[in-house]
């Protein structure tokens, strides 16, 4: 029983990683209306930038600078390309982001090679903490802290700032917002940049744990989507709850039956969608309920 508890506690820590990973995707989808298949590509880009930056500025420098750089690239992409596709068939943004993902992965392979790059665990986060008989690595506790900051920061941005007010208004009634004379264009660019920056941040945080290699983006893309879907499309807190839930379920599956560990999040998604098609906290989808 104690063992199971330890796995659940660990699952919460793992869940905090899923939150950082999926939150950006959810923001871009809920507030920007774009299904971003390039999410994984920016995640990988964040890790690669961090690899280069941490050699000069250390890990803390990388954590701050890499997501900002990736976010800026995201904003450029939104301004140059995505913006033209809003009016078009949704399939086009899907195809564009998908193409972008593939092009990015191959570029990473071309520039840095197919071999995994060694990314050391930053010295200040090494070591483990023992609480009773439960063991926690400092790095993962730090990741929990980062996730908390990200969640709270984003919530404050969306709910306590004028910018956030415009974003939320733009989601529910863009016509009225335009009628009031507020342009949503820069808002969308900013949201896109924020979501992409979060993807990059997730990549940076994962680098000491899983290394840096060109295929890393494709691998986490489905996980990010699953978390967003379980949480419910359009819901902020849904992503948070779903991330933690996926982490815990995965941890318990490893404890009980490891071969199903990777499949467990999909089984969870199927279960949630069967019982509650909108996702845990998503907006009601009239057609399905």
């Amino acid at each position: 029983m104690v063992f199971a508890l330890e796995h659940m506690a660990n699952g919460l820590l793992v869940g905090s990683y899923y939150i950082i990973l999926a939150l950006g995707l959810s923001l871009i989808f809920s507030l920007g209306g774009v299904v971003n298949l390039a999410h994984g590509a920016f995640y990988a880009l964040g890790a690669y930038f961090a690899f280069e930056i941490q050699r000069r500025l250390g890990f803390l420098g990388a954590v701050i600078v890499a997501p900002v750089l990736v976010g800026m690239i995201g904003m450029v992409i939104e301004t140059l390309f995505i913006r033209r596709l809003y009016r078009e068939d949704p399939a086009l943004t899907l195809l564009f982001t998908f193409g972008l993902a593939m092009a990015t992965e191959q570029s990473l392979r071309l520039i840095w090679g197919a071999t995994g790059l060694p990314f050391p665990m930053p010295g200040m986060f090494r070591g483990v903490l023992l609480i009773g008989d439960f063991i926690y690595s400092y790095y993962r506790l730090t990741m929990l802290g980062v996730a908390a900051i990200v969640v709270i920061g984003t919530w404050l941005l969306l709910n306590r700032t004028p910018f956030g007010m415009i974003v939320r208004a733009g989601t529910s009634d863009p016509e009225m917002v335009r009628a009031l004379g507020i342009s949503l264009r820069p808002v969308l660019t900013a949201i896109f940049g924020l979501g992409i920056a979060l993807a990059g941040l997730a990549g940076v945080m994962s680098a000491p744990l899983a290394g840096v290699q060109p295929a890393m983006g494709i691998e986490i893309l489905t996980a990010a989507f699953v978390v967003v879907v379980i949480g419910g499309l359009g819901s902020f807190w849904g992503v948070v709850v779903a991330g933690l839930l996926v982490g815990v379920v995965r941890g318990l599956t490893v404890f009980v039956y490891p071969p199903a560990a990777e499949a467990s999040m999909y089984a969870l998604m199927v279960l949630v969608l069967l019982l509650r098609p909108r996702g845990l906290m998503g907006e009601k989808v009239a057609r399905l309920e």
Partner: protein
Amino acid sequence: MTSDPTRAVRPMTRRRALTTTAAGAAGFVAASQLGFPAIVRAQADAIRVGHLTPLTGFLGQLGEYAVMGATMAVDEANADGGALGRRVELITEDSVNPGVATEKAQKLIEGDRAACLIGEISSGSALAIADVANRLQTVYFNTGANSDALRGSNCNRFMFHVEGCNTMYTKTIGLWQQRQGLIDGAKWYFLTADYAFGHDLYRVSSKFLEENGGINLGNDMVPTNTLDYSAYILKIRQANPDFVYINLAGVDQTTFLKQYNEYGLDYPLAGGVMDTGPFWAAGLESLSGHWQSLWYHGLDNEASQAFTQKFVERYGKPPENQAWGEYVGTQILLKAINETGGTDSMAIVEYLEGGPEFDILKGRPGKFRDWDHQLLQEMYVVEVKDPSAAQDEWDIFEVLEPQPGPDQDLELIQPSKEENPCSMA
């Protein structure tokens, strides 16, 4: 969901949603099957060698070294006049997965008229290639796939193995551990990659453990491409073994090693396979323990050092054991073509079965065993270096000893006739 957040709502009908997803999915699947050959133009007079290796996926980083090794061998051969006075042409294809590997093997033999095939790292894809080679009666040199079954129940007359098999890897480290008294009465916990290669390796390694008095505490089957090992590491800690034995491959090795180091558990690590590339990617400070190596750039024999130096001059970094595999395999293949005076498959097969010795850049020459076509060769027990003693990021191992020892029979680490059911009738 609005398609344009700045304008009026454009209804996304159900049909549109379905066609969108279908188009996306179909595009995804189709695109992921694509791979393009590195060299396309074929000369009428050239000898074409078809090279299949995974360039994408979790073995992709090894595939990159494979291409470097094969390319260097072919370029050297051509600089020396080619084979039979004709130019040698290497056609490399990304094998991706067993299905794609089958198609590409066929294409290389029938379309590009390759005289022979070489390569592959994934045991699943190697099996697929072996079937094609057997059917189309073309020699195939396996330079990277480890499963015993390829030399055993799936053996065929046209396939030769330059790479070591799981039993060789297991016995290389196992015999050393046994001599150190680390096996008898010791409790081992296993982590195994949940696919054909991992299962085969677990079968071989757990059998060796139990035959030598060890205790199997348990095994966890880990899905490939697992990114988070924290739960598995917790289980290891809860089981409290004497040793942790990992049967993981490629990127998974890197990820596990980093995270095992993150938790700082002090159970010694060992494993059923060791590829230098993933260990480099983990970084020296994440590594510990004693491992087995098929070939390492730090070996001090002359031929090995010469190869390493040429490789570094050309590519700016030292060769990984996969580069060695392709390099040596290509050289042996071309030598066989020269010696038999042609590219007739059966002639090459019979020549190699005759047991000629080859310089394989090791202390002792290698030769193929005639009944299962495994290259008999020494392997090495290596120890992770102390970071203070390392001269660069690739200098991670101290070579302890060759296995088998210089006076011992090379058959010592091979599966015996009882263990290997290969029959090529």
